């Protein structure tokens, strides 16, 4: 019943091709940084919607809150440098 960050990370990475996610949270409130090539050319709204769509009605219910930061891999991003995803090896 309870949600853990690993589950969210796995579902985001499975739901968006090539995505890399870093998720933290306490079982109800989560914070995710998601990097995906699929975000290229999309508005923030559209990027966040891609992530929200993975969880559907679970958002606001089982997953009480999901704070999101999305970015395109390689894009120079100055804001929130502390929240940058750790470099991980991942063959896709």
């Amino acid at each position, binding site marked *: 019943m309870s949600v853990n960050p690993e589950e969210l990370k796995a579902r985001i990475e499975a739901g968006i091709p090539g995505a890399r996610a870093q998720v933290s949270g306490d079982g109800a409130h989560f914070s995710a940084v998601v990097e995906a090539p699929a975000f290229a050319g999309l508005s*923030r*709204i559209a990027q966040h*919607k891609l992530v*929200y769509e993975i*969880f559907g*009605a679970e*958002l606001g219910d089982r997953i009480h*809150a999901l*704070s999101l930061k999305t970015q395109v891999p390689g894009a120079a991003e100055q*804001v929130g440098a502390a929240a940058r995803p750790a470099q991980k090896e991942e063959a896709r």
Partner: protein
Amino acid sequence: MSDQASNPMREAIQEAIGQNHVILFMKGTPEAPACGFSARTVAILQSLEVPFAAVDVLPDPRIRQELSALSGWPTIPQLFIDGELIGGCDIVTEMYQSGELQQALGVAAKAGPEPEQPQAEPLSIENRLS
């Protein structure tokens, strides 16, 4: 099953979004936000001294239901500028930090928060329906 014939709640929401340059759907009111994300979004708008309309989604669960169906956005708060969904707390915060929000609102970046301007009464969509 959704009622196709008439949906006064959705119409009221659509009308409110269309009629207000800046409108925030939130939990609670600007004076008494009932959620940290709503509070943070209100604080940003207030720091920019932008007059905005506010709708509390808590009094009637249908407001949130219809709003999310309309906007395709699952969470609250939701900020609209000129009829267009800008985003929730995360996006508003990010856009505020980058200056994009100020641009979208047509205000210059302020050095710091200043005393609030008097605001319009929060809109009560549920009242207009009962």
